[in-house]
C-alpha cells in the first residue's frame, strides 16, 4: 500500500502532447479512476506510472520514492491489461505464480500463495487449464489473481472490464470493488465508461486531450462539474447545456421536469420545451426535444421518473422547469464553471419565474 504521486507529468509523442502536466496524488488505499474518452491520455498516464512508458517531463513518486526512471519491476506494482495478457503457454497455476517466481520464492510458498489468490476469485478448479480453455470472465479473474498474488503496493487496471459482456460487467465491477476494499491496495483504474467510474471510484480524475479537467468524488463531479466537458461526459443522459447571452447554463435531465411536478415554493427557471420523441425505458421516460437558446433551438433531454404519470406526446410544447439551485453556469468562451448570475440579466428569451 503506497501513495502514488505524479508531479507535472508530461508525455509527448512527437508533436502530440498525450499527457499535459498532470499533478495527481493518490492516497493510500484509495481507488482512483482515470476517466476520459479514447485519446485523452489516461492510458499513457497509467503506463508511465507502471514504468512501461518514459515520461517526457515531470516526476513519479511511489511511496515517497522517486521512481521516474526505474523499470517496472522496481516499482512493486501489478497491472491488469485490457487484453488480460495471460501467458498463453502456461497453465493458470503457472500464470499466477509467475510474479512470485521473479521474486525467487520456493515452490511451497508459491503454491500456498497461488491457492490463496485463486480462492479470492473462485478459480481454484481452473488451475490446470490453459488460458485458451477459459471464458472471458474466467480469464479476467486469472489476470486479477495474478495481480494480487504478489500483494503489490499499487494496483493498475487498464479497462479490465471492456472485454466482458454487459451482464458480466456489472458483477465483475462489484467483485473488483469488494476485493479492493478487502485488501485495501492503492488502485488506479482506467476506463472510458462513466458508469464504471461513478460506481467504483473513491475519486475520479476526468481527462480530455491530455489535460485533467477535474478531480473529485463522484458526487462532486456530478453535482459541481468544473466545466462543460465534465458536465457532458458524466451522467446518462449527460447534462443539458443551453446557451444564454453571456454564459452557458447547464442542468441534469432528471432536474428538468414538468412544471406541475416541482414544489411551488422553490425558485424555478422555466422553458417552453418542444418534445420531438418520447423513449419509454420502464423506470424512466426520456423526452427528447428542443428549447430556445441564445443561438437558436437547442436539443435537450428530460428524464422523467415513472412516478410522474403525466402524458407526453411528440410534437407538442410543454412548460418545463428547473430549480434554480440545480442550475450550473459556465463561461461562454472557456467552458469553465462560473458563479451563478442573477436571473434577470441572463434571461431574455425564456421566462424566469421566481415564486
Amino acid at each position, binding site marked *: 500500500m503506497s501513495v502514488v504521486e505524479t508531479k507535472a507529468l508530461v508525455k509527448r509523442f512527437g508533436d502530440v502532447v498525450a499527457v499535459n502536466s498532470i499533478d495527481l496524488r493518490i492516497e493510500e488505499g484509495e481507488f482512483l479512476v482515470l476517466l476520459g474518452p479514447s485519446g485523452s491520455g489516461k492510458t499513457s498516464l497509467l503506463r508511465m506510472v*507502471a514504468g512501461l512508458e518514459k515520461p517526457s517531463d515531470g516526476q513519479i513518486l511511489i511511496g515517497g520514492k522517486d521512481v521516474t526512471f526505474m523499470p*517496472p*519491476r522496481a516499482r512493486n506494482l501489478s497491472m491488469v491489461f485490457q487484453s488480460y495478457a495471460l501467458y498463453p503457454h502456461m497453465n493458470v497455476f503457472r500464470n499466477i505464480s*509467475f510474479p512470485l517466481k521473479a521474486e525467487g520464492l520456493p515452490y511451497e510458498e508459491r503454491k500456498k500463495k497461488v491457492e490463496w489468490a485463486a480462492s479470492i476469485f473462485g478459480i481454484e478448479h481452473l488451475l490446470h487449464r490453459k488460458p485458451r480453455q477459459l471464458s472471458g470472465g474466467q480469464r479476467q479473474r486469472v489476470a486479477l489473481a495474478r495481480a494480487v498474488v504478489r500483494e503489490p503496493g499499487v494496483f493498475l487496471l487498464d479497462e479490465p472490464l471492456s472485454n466482458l459482456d454487459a451482464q458480466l460487467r456489472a458483477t465483475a465491477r462489484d467483485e473488483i470493488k469488494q476485493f479492493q476494499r478487502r485488501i485495501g491496495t492503492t488502485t488506479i483504474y482506467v476506463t472510458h465508461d462513466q458508469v464504471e467510474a461513478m460506481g467504483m471510484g473513491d475519486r475520479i480524475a476526468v481527462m480530455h486531450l491530455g489535460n485533467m479537467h477535474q478531480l473529485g468524488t463522484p458526487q462532486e463531479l456530478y453535482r459541481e462539474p468544473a466545466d462543460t466537458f465534465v458536465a457532458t461526459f458524466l451522467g446518462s443522459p449527460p447534462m443539458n447545456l443551453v446557451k444564454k447571452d453571456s454564459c452557458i447554463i447547464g442542468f441534469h435531465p432528471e432536474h428538468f421536469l414538468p412544471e406541475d411536478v416541482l414544489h411551488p415554493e422553490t425558485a424555478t427557471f422555466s422553458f417552453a420545451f418542444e418534445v420531438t420523441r418520447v423513449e419509454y425505458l420502464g423506470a424512466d421516460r426520456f423526452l427528447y426535444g428542443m428549447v430556445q437558446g441564445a443561438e437558436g433551438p437547442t436539443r435537450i433531454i428530460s428524464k422523467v421518473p415513472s412516478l410522474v404519470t403525466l402524458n407526453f406526446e411528440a410534437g407538442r410544447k410543454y412548460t418545463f422547469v428547473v430549480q434554480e439551485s440545480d442550475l450550473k453556469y459556465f463561461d461562454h468562451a472557456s467552458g469553465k464553471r462560473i458563479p451563478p448570475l442573477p436571473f434577470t440579466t441572463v434571461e431574455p428569451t425564456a421566462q424566469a419565474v421566481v415564486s
Partner: protein
Amino acid sequence: MTNGNYILRQVARYGLIYAIVTLFAVFAALPFFQMLVIAFKSDADFNNPRENIPFWFNEAPTNEHLTYLLEETQYLTFIWNSLLIGVFVVGITLVFATPAAYSLARLTGRQGERLGILIFLVYLIPPTLLFIPMSRVVSFLELQNSKWALVVIYPTFTIPFCTWLLFGFMKTIPKDIEEQAMVDGYSRFGAMLRVVLPLALPGLLTVVVFSFMLTLHEYIYALAFTTTSSEKPISVGVTTELVRGDVFFWQSLMAAAVFVALPIAVIYNLFLNRFVSGLTMGAVKG
C-alpha cells in the same frame, strides 16, 4: 434410400479427393523412387536403357555402387562435414537473428519494417558476386581450404533471411504479454527469455530447419573454399568425387543423393506450413 444416396455421394467425393492427392503424392515421390532404383542397378542394366525399363530392375540389383560410395569416397566424411557446418551455422544464426528480429519487431513506427526489408535485401545478393571478395576475407582469416571458412561465410546469408523470418513471428506476439512480464518483475531480457521466446518457438524451429537446409544445398562457396576431400561438405564432395571428367558414377551419385534427401524431405514437410506462414506474416502486416 436417401441415406444410401448420401453415403454413395460421400464415397465418391472422398474417392475423388484421394485419387487426386494420390496422383500428386506419386508424382512427388517418383524422383526418390527413381534414385533408389538407379542406386542399386548394375552397370549393364543401367547402360542399356533402350531395351530395359528405366524404372525397374531388369537384372538382379547390386550393392556394389553403394559399397563403392562408402569405401572408395569419403561420403561419410562429407556428411559429417555438412552436419558440423550446419550445426555451427544454425547456432550462429540463432544467436544473431533472434535478438535482431526481436528488436526490429519492437521498434516503434514503420522503421522496424523498413530496416527488416533492408536486411532481407542482403540475402538477395547472389553468392556468385560475393565469393571473390569473400575469398579475401577467408585468406585474411587463414581459413583457406577449410570447412570453417564455410562456417564463417554461411551466416552472411542465413542471418538476413532468418532475421526476416523471425521478425514476422515476433510481430504476432502481443506486446501486452511481455509488458505484463516486465510489470510482474522481470527485466526486458528476462521477459524475452521466458515469455517471448517460448511463444516464438515455432518460428525458432523453422529457422533451425531452414538455415540448416540453406547450408546443406549451398554449392558455390563450398566449391570455392574447400579443395581437400576431407574438408568438403556433401553438396560439393559428392559432385566432385563422383564425376570424373565426363564419366558420371550415376548409381553412386544417386545413392549419395537419396540418403541425404529422404530425411530432409520428411523434416521439411513437417515444417512447410509454419515456414510459409512465417514468411508471409511479416509481409502482410505492412
